[in-house]
């Protein structure tokens, strides 16, 4: 059984169908890429999966459990985490505190604990800080833990978002254009990081425009165009799929390519 099973997911905004009956199955332990031209509905699909917008119809299952109706904050507790296309770190918090917010769902934060500060609660807090530091270590930001999050450079802010997303060891990690704005060296480091996250037991679903990155890293690729799934399969097969070439390059170029051989 797949870890994430999305079936005939549909959402309409004011008559416009942004995501149209999309099926998606993400196997546990894989790196799965969701690609497509601009406006294909990739980020909308992410927002549906993470519960930020309600679907018009269709269902989302995580490890066999239907989570379609769960509010966003509960999905974190189910082992789902994500990064955002436009970076959304908490500007007023330090780097370490940003990562600690990623543990919010797992930490029992009730008022009585906070006021009484019993030894058990303090141990839990110390443990959380240790895990947050470990996550920063993984993404290579261990030295910046106490800096203001806004003091980080752009690429580091992206890595901070990833640290915040992986600190709770989610079962499913969704990365929305993690390589955007990165130079080739940074992209390569990112690919290694994503593989390490996968090897540590987290399944990864990512949206990305950088085809070199996607083809090098993904075990499976799903292609969307105009809100519809037009292809799904291994990277090499998807790359040769005429429907995909047409979607990216337009029908004329695709026909010419086919004619050329």
């Amino acid at each position: 059984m797949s870890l994430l099973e999305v079936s005939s997911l549909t959402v309409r905004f004011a008559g416009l169908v942004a995501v149209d009956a999309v099926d998606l199955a993400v196997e546990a332990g894989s790196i799965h890429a969701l690609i497509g031209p601009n406006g294909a509905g990739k980020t909308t699909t992410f927002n549906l999966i993470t519960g930020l917008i309600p679907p018009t119809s269709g269902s989302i299952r995580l490890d066999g459990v239907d989570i379609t109706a769960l509010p966003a904050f509960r999905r974190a507790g189910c082992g789902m985490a994500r990064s955002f296309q436009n970076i959304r770190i908490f500007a007023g918090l330090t780097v370490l505190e940003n990562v600690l917010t990623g543990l919010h769902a797992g930490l029992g934060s009730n008022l009585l604990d906070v006021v009484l500060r019993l030894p058990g609660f303090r141990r839990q807090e110390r443990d959380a800080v240790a895990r947050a530091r470990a996550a920063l270590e993984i993404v290579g930001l261990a030295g910046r833990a106490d800096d203001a999050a806004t003091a980080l450079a752009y690429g580091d802010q992206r890595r901070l978002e990833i640290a915040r997303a992986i600190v709770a060891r989610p079962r499913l990690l969704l990365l929305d254009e993690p390589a955007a704005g990165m130079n080739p060296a940074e992209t390569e480091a990112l690919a290694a990081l994503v593989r390490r996250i996968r090897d540590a037991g987290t399944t990864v679903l990512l949206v990305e425009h950088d085809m070199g990155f996607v083809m090098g890293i993904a075990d499976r690729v799903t292609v969307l165009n105009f809100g519809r799934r037009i292809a799904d399969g291994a990277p090499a097969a998807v790359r040769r799929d005429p429907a995909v070439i047409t979607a990216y390059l337009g029908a004329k170029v695709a026909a010419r390519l086919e004619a050329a051989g």
Partner: protein
Amino acid sequence: MLAQQLINGVLLGSTYALFALGFTLMFGVLKVVNLTYGFYFSAGAFFALHLTKQWGWPIAAALPAAAAASGVLAVVLDWLLLTRLRRINAPELSSLMVTLGAVLALYAGMTTWLGPDIRRLPAGVLGGEALVLGELRITQAQILILLATAVLVGGLLALMRLTPIGLALRAMAEKPDAAGLMGIDTAKLAALVSLVCGALAGAGGVLIGLNFNAIQPYMGEAMMLRGFVVIIIGGLGDVRGALIAGLLLGVVETLTAGYIDSGLKEAVAFIMLVAVLWTRPSGLFGRAHIQRA
């Protein structure tokens, strides 16, 4: 008796509708809950009081002049308070807080200057005879209110539907990014909307001052309560909703005062507001904007 109450209610409600129209338009187009709005209502009434009392103007001349003066005041205050926040794209609660602080300072300053007493328009202004139709009694002030409201609301709707600038305003109210797309200068737009809305509030102040013949610095604050109720019931930024909800509130208040207790009309208005929030949070005529996060 009931017919008389209904007529009084519709007349009162048409003033509420007029008042709320400017408030909701300001929100719809400029995306700001501008709490100085109630002050233009007070200011309009005081301008008219001054013009009729000190300068001996007839009300037919004092009403448009007071409305225009209130509109200019609104433009100035909008520029002073909100230009900076618009530039830095501040969160909506910032502009709400700024206008809230400003309106307290304005009311308190006006009260210090002019005193808290209730003032009355000069005797001749209101005209003498009431129109009597069988059992019904309609005062000249009420007729003026009806005429003025019809002209102002009709004029505004015509402006919104028929002129290019009106179409731009509607586009803005429906789609926030539209102004940028249509190449509209935000500063000019804010000035125009403030002028129109401030004038509506000022006219409302004159008309309510006429209806109850009582003018007082904080009258705009009491009116704002109605403004809040009307724009929540009608839907934030919804012009048609504001008109219908304004009339509805006027009738309900008048009936409450007539048949239950005049001291409870505010409470009834507030219960309507809470009931709408529970059942139809986007207003009786609007679509829902519920957040999932």
